[in-house]
């Protein structure tokens, strides 16, 4: 009887000197795995152009119908994205999103990526809808060159499927 009590206390004592598995959230943030699927980001190319071409394929793939894309035609003098088309509006309803990552799979330009940010809370439902401004990475965070196919001869060919990464 007594022996069992000491056995239990012994376990407690042992764990007192172990490294704890819990972290002091939110002061300490736990790193996530490489393939963790968190809040989306809309990526850019290294030169600052948006990758998103407004094709709506992410919206079509989304099983929760969380994405809204309203496309528009690029002004050739000041294009937003390479090619003829860009997303004039891009919205994701984070309350609907189930973080399946299908949008990321569907995207032909690797524009929409589920990143590692997981702190998603809102004061009202309205603010759960993230707009393009919220989702776009800053211009200096762009990466990847525009593939040569998109740059030739001042033409405005549209981006081919799954360019670079």
């Amino acid at each position, binding site marked *: 009887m007594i022996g069992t009590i000491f056995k239990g206390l012994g376990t407690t004592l042992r764990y007192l000197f172990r490294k704890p598995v819990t972290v002091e959230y939110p002061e300490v943030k736990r790193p996530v795995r490489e393939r963790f699927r968190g809040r989306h980001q809309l990526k850019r190319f290294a030169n600052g152009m948006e990758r998103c071409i407004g*094709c709506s394929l992410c919206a079509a793939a989304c099983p929760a119908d969380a994405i809204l894309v309203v496309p528009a035609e690029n002004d050739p003098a000041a294009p937003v994205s390479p090619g003829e088309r860009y997303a004039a509006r891009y919205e994701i309803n984070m309350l609907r999103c189930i973080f399946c990552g299908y949008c990321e799979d569907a995207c032909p330009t690797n524009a929409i990526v589920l990143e590692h940010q997981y702190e998603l809370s809102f004061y009202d439902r309205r603010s759960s809808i993230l707009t393009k401004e919220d989702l776009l990475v800053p211009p200096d965070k762009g990466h990847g060159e525009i593939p040569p*196919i998109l740059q030739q001869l001042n033409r*405005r060919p549209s*981006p081919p499927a799954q360019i670079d990464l």
Partner: protein
Amino acid sequence: MPNVTLVIDGQTVTVPAGTNIVDAARIAGIAIPVFCYHPKLKPVGMCRMCLVEVWTPKIDPATRQAVIGEDGRPVMTLMMGKLQPGCVTSVSDGMEVRTTTDRVRFAQKGQLEFLLTSHPLDCPVCDKGGECPLQNLTMQFGPSTSRFDYADKIHFEKPIRLGDLIYLDRERCILCSRCVRFQDDIAGDPVLGFDNRGRTWEIISKSDPPFDSKFSGNTTDICPVGALTTADFRFKARVWELRPTPSICPHCPVGCNISLDMRYDRLMRVMPRENDYVNEIWICDKGRFGMRFIESPERLRQPLIRKGDTLTPATWDEAIALIAEKLIAIRTHAGAAALGGLASPDLPNEDLYLFQKLFRQVLRSPNLDFCTGAPGEPAIIDLGATLGVGKGTNLSNLGAGTSVLVVGADPEEEAPLYVLRLRGIAARGGDLTIINPYPTKLDRTPARVIRPRAGAEAFVALALLKTLIEEELIAADFVTRRVQGFDELKMRLRNHSVASLCDAAGAPEDVVRSAAYAFAKADNGIIIYGRVALASGADLIDALADLALLTGHVGRPNNGVIPLIPGANARGALDMGVHPGAGKKRGLTAREMWAAAREGRLRGMIIAGMDPVRDNPAAAEALDALEFLVVQDIFLTETAQHADVVLPTASIAGREGTLTNAERRVQRFRQARIPEFNTPAGWDVAQRIARALIALGVKPTAPDGQGDGRGASRTLAKTAATTASSDQWDYAVAGDVADEIAATVHGYADTTYESLGLTRKPQWGRQPNEAIFYDGTSYENTEGVGVQIAAEADNPKATFTLRARVPPLFATNDAYPYTLLAAPRAYDGRAWSRDSKLLPRMVTPHLILNADDATALGIAPGGLVQIASEVGCAVLPAQIDRNLPRGLALMPDVDGAPLSRVQTGPLTRIAIMAHISETVGTR
């Protein structure tokens, strides 16, 4: 045609001789993939996608008999030893076609690989993506990878404009020539062509202005890839995001079936819906690109009430209360006859019906019209209700054996789709006669063209009648049974010869005779008349009626008269009774209302959806003399600016209803979105006014013969219940009004929404595999094809009296040597054109003159001319047309044209002189 029996993939089918293999397979329910072939176009065999194995019985050259093999069956040989294109190979007896063998699959795969060698990887941004035959067939038949190097793809500059409306992406074009063939054969505007060759082979526009055709939008539908896209829909949305709503084009009497493709409640694009009875799979550009007005920011949002000089926003309750109070006041002190109503012939039947019910039964005023009362507006003489084309008419089936007279009409401008329908009839071997005082684009169709003097068209019709009588071409049996007054007619024409009548018309006698002969001998005869015929007047129309009667071309399907009366629902306006002659007591016409208003006999008016003040200063004056004016419209029109109360209504997208087209087909359109700014439909506005009046003690009367005055009594017993309840004006939805229309309006018995719905499948619908042909082309018709209501002549007991008479010649006047005619224009720049991509094509006011006349007058093209008639004068730019007859001047009836200032009637004698600019004159 004899039938041919063949075997396709083991299935035995029997088809008419001359059918090609692709169509034969379609009948058997087997889909052979195609790109260049289209069931509505002639096959050319350009793409080789339809390659199939064709086996024919081996023929012994000596005996010319099929060789019989040892098993007792004919020995089969592969035609030419290789695969054959199915779209250009006709079927023959005993043929065996195999569409799924390895050899065929291999060819299909190779063909797609070739087509894709230079195809861009545009699918994510391509407007065709999702309804693209190339995408779909590649998924079904194509290779998954290409052996060609990506870097070898040929690149063109991305979209180039073929015109203001259509963009061409040459990288995507597979050179199937569907667009070229549509323009050449179907539309009759051969403005597209090929340029260069080899890998730089491309489509170009040959016309100036580029792609000058009223049917250009259809090429984007039939293009099997995303090479042709419209400026209107470019990058608006992906096609799978659209919610197609069945609708009817509100722009002309054809009543094309369209689909309003909505995304949430925004209109993304307008597409045709298939209906062989009306528009096949086509629509014109006015219907396709002229719907942006529904989203115009200038739309009226709430009722306005006049306070002093300004119209200030008010609530519906205030506005309706004020209207009821004022209308009752006018009725008390000036009588019901001091009230009048004008409703636009573009409004749906439900609106028109309740509008006239409000007037006839609640306000008890017979003053109703759907005309604007402009001085040059011709009187509406309708033959549609009596001699209209028989129930079951389908122009898309007609060809050889059919004769059509197009009299005083410019279908291209008045009802564009009739151009395609008439060209189709001509292409299938039908006979076409065009009688018009000036050249129109329809003249390009193979046809007999008779060019009478303006105003003398009646003499051509009389010459035709005289020819019928002289050469004994009349349908004697029909005439004895159902026509009266034949002897009297012969008497009236006794003193005239064909030659003298032709002479009076200025028409060649031999052509007139051959036209009469062709029309009388044809199995089916149709007469189409339009705006110029109406301008010519009752003499012509009566003669046309007699022409149809004497030849017996009435009362049967595919026979009769099609009047093209301006307005999308003029037919409905006539049938619902929105015209002064509909009730027991004759009311005032629009023109009489203007006079009555100026003289103070007419005190209050309601004008619905119409803008009579536009370009007609006299109407403005009359409206200002009124005590009280209510205008109900979707825009603050010029007329609305004269109103005391302005009521906003929903556009065609925000409500449902029915329209009746020129061939008396009642068709239903659906509500595509919640009403803009919560505006009510027109019928509901009438209902609100009626309820307010009844609440203030007005007692409605029993129905005074709606429609043409025959309906009410005929169906009274059956509809007693409906009539009783409807006095309370408790229509909740448009369908309630439609039910009452069906119960009370003559001929409309079968037009409840329920029965209109019955014309859906299974009577109608595509075969399961037809997507291969129609993918992205047009929508299948899921709403039904509409119900054609019978004309009086369809009743085998109805008899008719011949009325034709020889009129006096149109008086000449030396002081005013020219004849001015208002020419209808589809692109008239009026309210519908707001925000449309067609705006640059709108016709601006001008005068069209003959080249020799212009030279004689010293007028250069584009120079200003001054015209004067007995009532006024105007200055406008001149356009020279060398084909216009001398002595005739055309003024397009468009926004801003000074027609009302000079016209004394539909035909006006005018003087023309070069305009000396005032600055020069004063110096």
